[in-house]
């Protein structure tokens, strides 16, 4: 297999200092040192194949960023095995990071006082990118991300959306084989988010770059990821196709029908009637048991229909239920 990421029994614990409270707190803090152990990542296993685009989800504090930081060589794991692209990231940091790209949505890698283009130039030297390739990449990304209007503006004057586009471009100029995104769409408006999603998809499809991304925006997942992994309190609780996740948890579609006449009773076999009033009925059905056309046919055989529509299962609700009820 062409697995590019191998993670097994990976753990990261943090000692977080506990401070005394109350009257003598500052004196006690000076004299004694108490700490609490946090298992940010608590023994996870997964592999990622070359060319995959995987969404990494989980509630706040679940351990997503900590995982990404280990994968990018920033943190040394407390235990477990981690091999990415043939490297143990933290051991051979310099050679390893030359072949990956990482974007942390809350941070910038660009130089605050420099015009964007000069930060890119610095990257060209840092990553020793051949001039021809640098120019080609820059031209391509410029087209897709529309960087031209602000290439010569200092980073400190960019809007959040512009800065994010510039950061993403910077992370890709050296043709990384693997990309890590930690909340790349955080704080952006709908249009900006969409542009970044399209770009990530483009990179994944055209360049076959492997992508792992964390996000709290379900639309990112819906648009981009076939496969998702969900982590909660440091443990991986789901790893598989998004479609399967939806099937297992709240994978119900809804059929909404407006009838041409008033019927006393509109039940059909194979679907559950959720509500019926004012000549409108809402059915819930499981697509594994009955297909949409079959259901529509069943309804239209018995009743006169004026209009109908089908609603996909709502991912957001599904994920929220998983987080809240800790279903898995």
């Amino acid at each position, binding site marked *: 297999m062409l697995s590019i990421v191998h993670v097994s029994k990976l753990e990261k614990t943090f000692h977080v200092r506990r401070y005394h409270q109350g009257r003598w707190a500052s004196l006690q803090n000076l004299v004694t040192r108490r700490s609490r152990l946090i298992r940010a990542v608590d023994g996870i296993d997964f592999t990622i194949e070359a060319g995959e685009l995987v969404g990494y989800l989980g509630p706040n504090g679940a351990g997503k960023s900590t995982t990404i930081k280990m994968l990018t060589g920033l*943190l040394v794991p407390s235990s477990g095995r981690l091999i990415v692209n043939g490297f143990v990231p933290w051991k051979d940091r310099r050679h390893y*990071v030359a072949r990956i790209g990482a974007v942390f949505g809350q941070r910038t890698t660009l130089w605050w006082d420099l015009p964007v283009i000069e930060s890119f130039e610095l990257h060209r030297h*840092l990553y020793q990118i051949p001039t021809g390739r640098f120019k080609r990449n820059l031209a391509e990304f410029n087209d897709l991300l529309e960087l031209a209007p602000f290439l010569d503006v200092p980073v400190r004057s960019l809007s959040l959306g512009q800065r994010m586009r510039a950061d993403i471009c910077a992370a890709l100029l050296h043709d990384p084989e693997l990309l890590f995104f930690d909340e790349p769409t955080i704080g952006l408006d709908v249009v900006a988010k969409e542009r970044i999603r399209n770009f990530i998809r483009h990179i994944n499809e055209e360049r076959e770059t492997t992508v792992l991304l964390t996000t709290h925006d379900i639309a990112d997942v819906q648009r981009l990821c076939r496969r998702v992994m969900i982590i909660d309190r440091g443990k991986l609780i789901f790893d598989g196709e998004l479609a399967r996740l939806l099937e297992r948890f709240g994978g119900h579609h809804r059929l909404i029908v407006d009838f041409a006449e008033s019927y006393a009773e509109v039940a059909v076999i194979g679907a559950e009637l959720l509500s019926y009033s004012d000549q409108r009925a809402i059915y819930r059905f499981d697509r594994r048991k009955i297909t949409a056309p079959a259901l529509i046919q069943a309804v239209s055989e018995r009743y006169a229909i004026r209009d109908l529509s089908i609603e996909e299962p709502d991912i957001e609700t599904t994920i929220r239920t998983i987080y809240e009820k800790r279903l898995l």
Partner: protein
Amino acid sequence: MRQAFDIYRRLLGVQIRSQLQYRVSFSFDLFSAILVTATEFAALALVFERFEQIGGWTLGEVAFLFGLLEISFGIMDMVFGGFDPQDFGASVRHGSFDQIMLRPAHLLTQVLGSQFALRRLGRIVFGAGVLLFAVTVTQLDWTLAKVLYLPLVVTGMVLFFGGLYIVGSTITFWTVESIEAINILTYGGSYLISYPMHIYQNWLRRIFTYLVPAIFLNYYPVLYFLDKPDPFGFPAFAPFLSPLVGVASFVAALAFWRFGVKHYQSTGS
């Protein structure tokens, strides 16, 4: 190595250009740096107004110690600005160190290239002025060996204090609370060795001889430059230990730094 130097040069270019963008604040910083050093020297000179000598040394002789230290510390502060524990601790807390780790260049190159406080030039230039004054009034007897050795002494001190900065920065990987302690060591130590070491109590001087061998950085070389006798009877090579002490402390500091990086925790958000 050549690539590292090329990167360092480019990063420095960024720093210098950024600083010159804020011209007013730069001139102000430069001016205040001179003022601080000048005030310190004035305070020293005032002591001589009353006592004429400190531990048997004249103003010119103490000015030699002071000037040499100011030049060295100024150069160190300029070159190792990225490792100033205060600033480095902030860059760890704000996550900029994460970004440094993500780039395929040596961490040392990048941290050194992340700051270059040009305003320290004020301190260096003033220190050079004081040294010149000292050389003139003591009518120093130059030999070729002395001329060649002077830059080595400066290098020794730059490396020693640079090493202290690195140790202080490394400690911020674990805690930011000890920054004050390190600062006291760095600034206090540098202040201490700008006076002739024989004026201190035995216990203090012993600490700075055997525990932290700072006495060899400045005091012993100056005994040699000024052709003064050694009051403590160390072997004749004692004045020439300065570069060695500097290099040894720097190497030790780097080893500690490498150990610290493996324990880097990044930030929680």
